[in-house]
């Protein structure tokens, strides 16, 4: 029983980072109705810029974080201009295929620039581990949880209590109604892309700083985790993305403990399969009628 609770706790810590990735995907998908599968790789570019300033000038976490944000933002803008702004809004597949091409480009570019297999990343400041009633929460995990929680609070405030949030929700709700309501669709879409990049960069930063090292495969990893969490939660729903990320983290932790690392991936894909069959709308129950656009 204690194991079960401990695994859940570990799962929530890992899941909060997944949730941020899923929210990044969801922001873009919700507003544009198009999938940016190069989202993970754009974060990867960010953390490599962070790692670069760390290795080059032995910069600390703050400078590396700043570089991560800038890198992710620039890579995202590059993807937005080429794969989204330049392609008609109703050509969703063209955008997805094009973002796949940019994914390969970014991954190869970074692999060439950083020939070693792994690159060092500054670690998180040490926080005391917490032990209560036999349960254990590492200092790193605590910091990840707190940061993710803070990002969620800021996002909630931005989306539901700001003017830009209203524009974003309006565009996600109905693009046609938004167009006749004087919303500059291109501008809102662009800013949403930037916002998603920043949220993703926080996730990338937390994960990279926890591990202390990164590889160019981070892009693939982040896209997979974010996509799976988004699909489990329900496409286009922010609440779903949050829940999906947490569920993914908890299921992974339980599977790893009870069935071993090899079985973990099988369990995760099994869960995704089951979700798509039994709950096609995800945990948040998004009704996929085209008219139902949740954010």
């Amino acid at each position, binding site marked *: 029983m204690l194991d079960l609770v401990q695994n859940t706790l570990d799962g929530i810590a890992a899941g909060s980072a997944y949730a941020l990735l899923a929210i990044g995907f969801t922001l873009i998908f919700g507003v544009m109705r198009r999938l940016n599968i190069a989202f993970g790789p754009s974060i990867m570019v960010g953390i490599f810029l962070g790692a670069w300033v760390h290795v080059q000038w032995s910069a600390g976490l703050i400078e590396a974080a700043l570089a991560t944000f800038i890198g992710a933002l620039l890579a995202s803008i590059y993807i937005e201009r080429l794969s989204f702004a330049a392609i008609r809004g109703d050509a969703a597949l063209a955008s997805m295929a094009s973002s796949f091409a940019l994914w390969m480009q970014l991954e190869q570019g970074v692999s060439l620039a950083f020939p070693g297999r792994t690159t060092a990343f500054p670690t998180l400041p040490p926080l005391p581990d917490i032990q209560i009633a036999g349960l254990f929460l590492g200092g790193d995990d605590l910091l990840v949880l707190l940061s993710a929680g803070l990002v969620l609070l800021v996002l909630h405030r931005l989306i539901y209590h700001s003017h830009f949030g209203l*524009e974003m929700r309006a565009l996600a*709700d*109905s693009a*046609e109604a938004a*167009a*006749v309501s*004087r919303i500059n*669709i291109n501008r809102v879409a662009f800013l949403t892309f930037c916002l998603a990049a920043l949220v993703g960069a926080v996730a990338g930063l937390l994960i990279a700083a926890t591990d202390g090292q990164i590889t160019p495969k981070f892009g693939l990893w982040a896209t997979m985790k974010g996509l799976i969490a988004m699909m489990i939660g329900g496409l286009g729903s922010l609440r779903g993305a949050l829940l999906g990320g947490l569920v993914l983290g908890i299921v992974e932790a339980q599977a790893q403990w009870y069935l071993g690392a090899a079985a973990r991936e099988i369990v995760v894909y099994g869960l995704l399969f089951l979700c798509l069959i039994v709950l096609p709308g995800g945990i948040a129950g998004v009704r996929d009628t085209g008219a139902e656009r949740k954010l």
Partner: protein
Amino acid sequence: MLEIRDIKTSYGKIAALKGVSLDIHDGGLTCLLGPNGAGKTTLIWTIAGILKAQGGSMKIEGENILGLKPHQIVSKGIVTVPENRLVFPDMSVRDNLIAGAFSRRKEKGGVEGDLEDVLTRFPRLRERSEQLAGTLSGGEQQMLAVGRALMAKPKILLMDEPSTGLAPIIVEEIFEIIGGLRDEGRTIFLVEQNAHMALKYANRFYLLEQGKVTFSGEPGAVDHDEVIQRAYLGARKAS
């Protein structure tokens, strides 16, 4: 006020508007009638800047506005109430209305005051101001769409088939609202299938058939039955 000359719009190779010219005069209700597929909605979307015209000109108060983006068209004072009401279904009635005043967000007091005006004009929207727009009835959604358009302080209100899919008694109510707006001196361009109701309220009308304006006039001066028949069936049908 709005001068449309020889507008041509096509979907790929299919020409939907084959050179449409018409004038929307200041103050009053100009109505566009026509059968299904005549290009009525295409004209509205073209004026709103959502569809691109291949040729022609479009001027408001002498200023060319052809080729502007939808939000720029709205800033010129041309505001659309789209067909099928197109509200934001998952946002509250209040947020829907505020969404109508997007570009005017700087004038804080103005937006609040206009919100109050719209809620006073449509008391049923006030009762439901915190409800999600998707849960409103069809008639209420139409009121919301009109209210949202009014929030943008329009010079010209473009209304695309406001009676579609509504019960006859609700249609009467909607037309009373439109009549009220006309009597306030607002400029309205109404696209309607329901020629019978439209002719009751219009100051001037145009008949659009197969992408061309084939007839225009003032409702009092023409044979309503003839216009109504052509509006529903098109001119090519034998009577």
